[in-house]
């Protein structure tokens, strides 16, 4: 039986998988470390939030959906923090940002 909740869940899941795909393309194709982190840091955060909201809608109102929403809130705080920490460590260690016309790593 196709209900509104299932269609909404499928739309959220497809959006999440699309943003996972774009984040992966950015991680593989961008020229240096900081641009790759820019792709995965933002793309993965949005994709994981969309996928978790889709699964929570599919589950309906229950304790499991509440736990999934808790994971979503945690990921929305943790993913930017991890991205910031690793990029600060790379900047202090001396990784040079890519300039236009430079070599692709």
């Amino acid at each position, binding site marked *: 039986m196709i209900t509104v909740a299932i269609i909404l869940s499928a739309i959220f899941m497809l959006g999440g998988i699309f943003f996972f795909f774009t984040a992966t393309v950015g991680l593989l194709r961008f020229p240096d470390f900081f641009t790759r982190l820019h792709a995965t840091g933002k793309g993965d955060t949005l994709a994981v939030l969309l996928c978790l909201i889709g699964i929570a809608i599919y589950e309906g109102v229950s304790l499991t959906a509440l736990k999934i929403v808790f994971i979503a809130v945690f990921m929305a705080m943790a993913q930017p923090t991890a991205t910031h920490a690793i990029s600060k460590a790379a900047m202090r260690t001396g*990784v040079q940002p890519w300039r236009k016309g430079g070599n692709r790593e």
Partner: protein
Amino acid sequence: MNEFFLGAGIGLFVLVFFVLYRVVFGPGVFNRIAAISAIGTKTLIILLIMGIVYGRVDMFVDISMAYALLNFIGTLAAAKFLEMEKQS
């Protein structure tokens, strides 16, 4: 609907293999850590999809929560370790 979630899981599993290229060949240790963090994020969603396919979401959501915490702590610890190793 079960087939839809199975297809979504297989799609994410294929994406993990593309990210694995960056883990194996990526120049420098920072590229590898960023790629491992991206793989951990995808694994979180794959675990929940496995729970839906097997019909045991109430069990797999706890594993997924623990995986999210460990992925965050691991990335943070690796970043701090590399920063301190360079300064000393």
